[in-house]
């Protein structure tokens, strides 16, 4: 049974979580575990984006995973070539359940392929550039793609292969747009550094290559930080089409190279996952003058709110009316299901420890079900994702973040075009539409809940033991631990086997699924009928 949050002494919670760590580890973790206070008290700052302690089991991946797996993973017509031994490429081979829909049956789709230089000892000793060049030549002959991305894995950084020089040389030779990513796994503290590197290279090498303004709609947008897990993008597409909004490009769910090349012709950037893509949004603002704001299409209310923001930005009354009518129509079906499911879920507790934006976004869906998120945290986010971008000036760069290149961007002399005037922007801001801003996750959490950064396996178990939430959301690595403890677990990286959860139809899917998960009979049978029940308690054995 779910524990009641009010019955739990929060001071004790923290003590419990830190108790078994050696003093140094405890001091560090202490700063990454923050109790949310009421609005008139000051919540402490959270420490985030710091290195995981060796030997503490984390759910974090590496820089390469963030770059090749997350940001470039969903691209279908760029050949993503892993430069390294076989494992890194193999493990990132379509494991995120991204979906893509090429325009026609003959259009390129390399997403189901996994290309690797499969380095052998010889290359580790004598260098891998030669093999890399040959691999590119072969890809050129075999597939002649529009573009090839080269992704460096850990050993490549060490043996000193210059993937950028190879990319330049081979670009000239083949006429293909080829670019390298120095995303060796040891860079930065998590996949987050890889996002940044991916953003930089996409911006440098593809964005802005094609100036043609396509389509006929007045409302031309890019969607940034949406990765089309479980078909989310298809639901969003449906919504945009219904509203006559032209989606110029998505970074990078269901995307194509041509869309990236053309993305600077859009008039608005919508940022979904702030963590993974804010760099691109900022750079496009500076260079091309495209404003951005944060939206969230997870949750029916959040979707409606985001659509209204778009309406406000483009401004005309007809468009705004169209949006309102559409929301009204969609919400009828949503409400029917929501009310029914809320009756069965209300008052239960949820926990979400995942990603760099989902732990925030999915709280919306639980709210709609009348459920409270009593613990949430990101795997690889930074302080601004927790506390909002206003803390940006106060974040100090450490050794790990300093080694990720910051591009210096200037106004494009010919193509810079501020889409709206300063006055208009000020006016919109005064009406509550804030640009280039993200409020962060903690802002929306309730008094007495916990924000925990890079939660460890041990803390996960403790949190579950203390709060006995009705559902725990994380990734596949945590899935079976949580289920072994008798708690339903929802994967929010790959959505288990379900989805979409975005937009209105996605919300309906999610309500139904959560109801099914938390109200299933299975958990009641864990106890065999012939066994007397000792109090269910996790036991932790530690050497002192």
């Amino acid at each position, binding site marked *: 049974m779910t524990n009641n949050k009010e019955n739990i002494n929060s001071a004790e919670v923290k003590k419990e979580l830190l108790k*078994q*760590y*050696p003093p140094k580890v405890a001091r560090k973790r202490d700063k990454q575990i923050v109790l949310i206070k009421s609005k008139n008290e000051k919540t402490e700052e959270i420490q985030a984006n710091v*290195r995981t*302690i*060796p*030997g*503490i*089991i*984390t759910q974090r991946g*590496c820089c390469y*995973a963030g770059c090749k797996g997350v940001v470039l993973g969903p691209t279908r017509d760029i050949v993503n*070539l892993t430069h*390294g*031994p076989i*494992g890194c*490429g*193999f*493990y*990132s081979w379509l494991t995120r359940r991204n979906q893509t829909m*090429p325009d026609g049956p003959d259009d*390129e789709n390399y997403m189901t*392929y996994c*290309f*690797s230089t*499969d*380095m*052998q*000892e010889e290359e*580790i000793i004598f260098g891998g550039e030669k093999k890399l060049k*040959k*691999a590119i*030549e*072969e*890809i050129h*002959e*075999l*597939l002649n793609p529009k573009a090839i991305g080269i992704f460096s894995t*850990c*050993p490549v*950084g*060490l*043996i000193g292969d210059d993937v950028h020089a190879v990319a330049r040389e081979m670009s000239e030779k083949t006429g293909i747009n080829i670019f390298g990513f120095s995303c*060796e*796994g*040891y860079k930065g503290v998590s996949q987050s550094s890889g996002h940044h590197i991916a953003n930089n290279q996409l911006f440098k090498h593809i964005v802005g290559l094609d100036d043609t303004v396509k389509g006929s709609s007045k409302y031309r947008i890019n969607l940034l930080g949406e990765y089309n897990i479980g078909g989310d993008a298809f639901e969003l597409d449906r919504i945009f089409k219904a509203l006559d909004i032209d989606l110029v490009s998505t970074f990078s769910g269901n995307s194509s190279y041509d869309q990236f090349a053309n993305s600077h012709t859009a008039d608005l950037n919508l940022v979904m996952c702030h963590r993974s893509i804010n760099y691109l949004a900022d750079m496009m603002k500076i260079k091309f003058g495209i404003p951005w704001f944060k939206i969230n299409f997870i949750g029916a209310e959040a979707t409606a709110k985001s659509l209204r923001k778009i309406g406000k930005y483009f401004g005309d009354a007809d468009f705004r009316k169209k949006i309102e009518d559409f929301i009204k129509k969609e919400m009828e079906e949503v409400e029917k299901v929501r009310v029914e499911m809320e009756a069965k879920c209300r008052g239960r507790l949820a926990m979400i420890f995942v990603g760099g934006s989902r732990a925030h976004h999915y709280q919306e869906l639980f709210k709609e079900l009348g459920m409270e998120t009593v613990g949430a945290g990101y795997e690889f986010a930074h302080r601004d994702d927790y506390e909002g971008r206003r803390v940006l000036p106060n974040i100090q760069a450490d050794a*790990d973040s300093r080694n990720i290149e910051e591009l210096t961007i200037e106004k494009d002399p010919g193509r810079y075009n501020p889409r709206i005037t300063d006055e208009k922007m000020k006016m919109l801001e005064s009406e509550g539409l804030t640009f280039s801003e993200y409020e962060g996750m903690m802002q929306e959490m309730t008094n007495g809940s916990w924000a925990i950064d890079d939660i460890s396996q*041990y803390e996960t178990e403790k949190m579950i033991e203390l709060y006995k939430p009705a559902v725990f959301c994380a*990734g*596949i*690595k945590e899935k079976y*631990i949580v289920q*072994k*403890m008798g708690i339903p677990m929802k994967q929010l990286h790959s959505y288990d086997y379900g989805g979409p959860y975005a937009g209105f139809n996605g919300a309906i899917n999610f309500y139904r699924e959560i109801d099914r998960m938390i109200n299933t009979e299975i958990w009641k049978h*864990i*106890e065999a009928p012939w066994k007397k029940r000792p109090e*269910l308690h*996790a*036991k932790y054995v*530690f050497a002192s």
Partner: protein
Amino acid sequence: MIIDMESRKNNIKEGLDNIVTINACKLCTPLGACIAFKGIQGCMTILHGSQGCATYIRRYLISHYREPIDIASSSFDENAAIFGGGANLVKSISNVRRQYNPEVLAIATSCLSETIGDDIEMIVKGIESEEKIPIIPVSTASYRGTHREGFYAALLASVKSLAEKKDESSHINIISGMLSPEDIRYLKAIAGEFSDFVLLPDYSETLDSGSWGEYEKIAEGGTAIEDIRSMGSAAGTIELGGSCGLVSTAGKYLEEKFEVPLKNISLPVGLRGSDLLINSLSKLSGKEIPESIKKERLRLLDAYADAHKYLFGVKAIVYGEEDLAVALSSFLSELGISIVLCASGSNTGSFKEEVEKSIIDFDESVTHIAEGVDFEKIDEIAAELEAEIVIGNSKGYKLASKFGIPLIRTGFPIHDRFGGQRIQHVGYKGAMMLLDNIVNAVLETQQKNSSVIYNYM
């Protein structure tokens, strides 16, 4: 879109072929080591390198076994990557010990620590006495070998670190290959019919356990350390698989160092493979073969006779780790199935010979053997072969779907079907289960492709 590599291949210039690996048919070395170490009681594994490898490997294992799997990492940062990760390793050992209280620690290297040249044996020697628990170091660079080599290397390292010669004992060692938890359960039951035994690695519980109710830091089960110690005094060892290209194995080590007689057999898949296992057990233990096992064998033979008419001449593609591919080929050829292609992603040099030996009436004009290939290459070779079934792990799905033929899932990884950890490959019973699946897949295809609605076949 399915890229038609075949037609594009024509454009390829001489000497360019197969530089880039497209859709690999192998996984990386430490993954295999991690599976093997899950078979030791109270063992925690630390991957020495950046945390990404540990995370990726955990995720991959978990999606196959559907069990919690913890693998720690020494989490290199850029400095460790340049100057070596000894300090990180020591720190991670102490943190893992505090959190998990393991009985034994296993440390496997990744490509990064290997490239730097960290000498983990040295580092471990330096701290083992202080840590007061056994530590098993194993070198598992992925630019050398595949997950299969990692698996066997981990077993070798385990006996090297732990096995001793004590008083002679009558028990038998069984050293298993990369099999499923269900296989291990079966092997244990069969071996128990003959003699006391130690089976390494026993992940039958740790990688396929029941509902716990209470959380366990390290899943229960596994070969006990004392038992591994005693392997040096056993009456004999039966080692399954590992015959392709491995310089040393756990079984060989026990034989050379402690004079424990070794019987190396291939993975006991199919009739002959199982016969060999049962015979070896009977011989080593000096015990008669129990009636129940004899009956199981006869039941399998009966099924072979029944299945023959459906399977004779059916053309099959088999791929996977060498050991499994060899064993499956042996089994399929017993059924009269014609193996048109037997492939493996690793490159040991002796695969061809082993496959030739395993197939009854081997005919090189019928069977192609390909070693060190990726799925793109398998696809290319398969183009002309008119195969009717594909047998291997989930990664061959694309191949099977391209030709519109069924894929019988075996081995690792299986992440597009349920129950991969419970597939039984070995013994008479395993053969029976595989046989049922294969016949039914063939029948289903016939049924589907027929214009008549047969429901009696």
